[in-house]
């Protein structure tokens, strides 16, 4: 989550503790939902008839600082207690360590609105399901500095991954990498013909037309992970040439797309996309929720706005980094504990 955003949103719900993050350009969102079963004890607190369950956000760095060294944590910490104290404005994390030692961290938090990306996996036309390993291995072939990748479908049910090339780039100086995966590498493929977009445990990718978000989900009995990334869409004019091999050359993003993006992502923090705004091609209206207060930040509403491209590098390292260790979602691979450093020679 720290690779997506600088703030960690914590929301205790009846169905578990949700940890979420969104990136600064609002084109990427991830959530980890830990079911009550994941915990020894889970008490979300009680919501009154007019109030919702409390939620807050903290600085990602402050939170991560508590869990600094994973190998030593695993060796020395017996249990971790997380308490949200609204009246004291503190999020308390208490680690019970060996030798009877207790580490208590009182983090300052900010109250926040509900952070929710608007998406619906059921309405996506295409779905790919594969062990995370397959996709991780595919992604490894692309240069690490690559910003965007195009995921497409081709003849014979093959799935392609190709790096996105900007219009202005000189053909002779650009390296294009294209990778095709056979259908049998995936556990299930349900692909609408010609659909394409630019962007151990089974990973499911839900995608649809260009412009619609791509959703990666991972589910296990105690953890549910969603990663939602905005995608490039074609220009609104309908002169779209029919795709020949399933891979189309997408237009470069316009200069002011970040501003346009803001207006779309602003829709994420309010319940309805409505109040005069045209229905967005990228996000569907979310399920009914009580209307929230006005979202913060700029709100330049423009019509026919084009959502931005997902940061590919971030996507790769966030998602595959965390899913590669089977049975331990959300944790980095464990490292060998090195011998204690001593000053003496």
């Amino acid at each position, binding site marked *: 989550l720290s690779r997506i955003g600088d703030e960690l949103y914590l929301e205790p719900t009846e169905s578990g503790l949700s940890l979420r993050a969104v990136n600064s350009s609002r084109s990427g969102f991830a959530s980890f939902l830990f079911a009550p079963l994941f915990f020894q004890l889970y008490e979300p607190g009680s919501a009154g008839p007019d109030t919702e369950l409390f939620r807050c956000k903290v600085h990602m*760095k*402050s939170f991560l*600082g508590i869990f600094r060294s994973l190998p030593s944590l695993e060796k020395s910490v017996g249990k971790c207690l997380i308490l949200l104290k609204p009246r004291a404005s503190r999020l308390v994390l208490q680690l019970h360590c060996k*030798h*009877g*030692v*207790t580490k208590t961290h009182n983090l300052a938090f900010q109250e926040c609105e509900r952070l929710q990306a608007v998406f619906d996996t059921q309405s996506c036309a295409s779905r790919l399901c594969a062990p995370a390993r397959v996709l991780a291995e595919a992604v490894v072939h692309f240069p690490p500095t690559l910003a965007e990748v195009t995921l497409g479908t081709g003849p014979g049910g093959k799935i392609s991954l190709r790096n996105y090339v900007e219009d202005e780039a000189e053909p002779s100086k650009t390296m294009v990498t294209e990778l095709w995966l056979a259908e049998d590498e995936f556990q299930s493929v349900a692909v609408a013909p010609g659909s394409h977009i630019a962007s151990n445990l089974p990973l499911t990718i839900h995608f649809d037309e260009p412009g619609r978000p791509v959703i990666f989900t991972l589910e296990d009995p105690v953890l549910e992970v969603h990663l939602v990334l905005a995608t490039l869409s074609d220009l609104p004019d309908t002169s779209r040439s029919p795709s020949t091999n399933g891979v189309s050359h997408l237009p470069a993003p316009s200069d002011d797309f970040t501003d346009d993006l803001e207006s779309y992502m602003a829709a994420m923090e309010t319940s309805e996309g409505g109040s005069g705004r045209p229905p967005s091609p990228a996000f569907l209206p979310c399920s009914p929720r009580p209307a929230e207060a006005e979202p913060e930040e700029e709100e330049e509403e423009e019509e026919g706005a084009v959502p931005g491209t997902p940061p590919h590098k971030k996507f790769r390292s966030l998602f595959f980094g965390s899913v590669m260790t089977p049975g331990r979602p959300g944790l980095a691979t464990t490292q060998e504990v090195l011998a204690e450093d*001593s*000053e*003496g020679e």
Partner: protein
Amino acid sequence: MPFSAQPPTSGERHALSASLDNARHLSSLLRAVHFQDHATCLATASGLRVTVEDAKCIQANAFIQAEIFQEFSVQEESVMFRISLSVLLDCLTIFGTSSLPGTSTALRMCYRGYGYPLMLFLEEGGVVTVCKINTQEPDELLDFDFCSTKVVNKIILQSEGLREAFAELDMTSEVLQITMSPDKPYFRLSTFGNAGSAHLDYPRDSDLMEAFHCNQTQTNRYKISLLKPSTKALALSCKVSIRTDAQGFLSLQYMIRNEDGQICFVEYYCCPDENITEAEL
């Protein structure tokens, strides 16, 4: 190879003359107090004491007893001089700092007296280096007047329990607050940084606790930047004793076992921070 065969300059008696088979016995201890460039050395019949101070608030002492040396002789009651600790350490480790098994640097130290430089003869594998380090007028040292009768609270902990805590102290906090009490939380280290406050509690019945003698609840704050260098001494030590007196002065004594199993001590004294602000709990 020891230098006992090395003849002293004929007819002269050195104020201080010492030999050590393994210079690391000295250099590792000096590193544990190396948070300022200069140090004051005091040599008496009991051994060598190297003192480093900062801001008139903190003092660290490294003690190397005469028994650690193969030869140790002091002509007068005591010999005292100020010297650059950085240069001294560079010379002691001139053959490198990595410790290959079986090899060690032999040291012979000679000091003729007031105004003379400190001479070091270092040998490893047949190669000899001679160093001459200028000495200065010794500084007046702080006297914390910390004797056992004035101690209010005292605990002895196994260092292993504190090492990680000190290495991971939240340095965005200006102070390190130490609470010692006969009641809960018994022994608590607290920081108040940008992210919020953090408390580390050690119960009196923890198996890390070797001795627990707290008579009064005391909470004192010390500038974290002054105490942070003590982490080096903590890393070398096997046990640490933490004591406070009625004024809140802090004494940290580290018991260090060297490569040959001999015991040496390093101690840190620190004044409490005068600028007390409301504690966040």
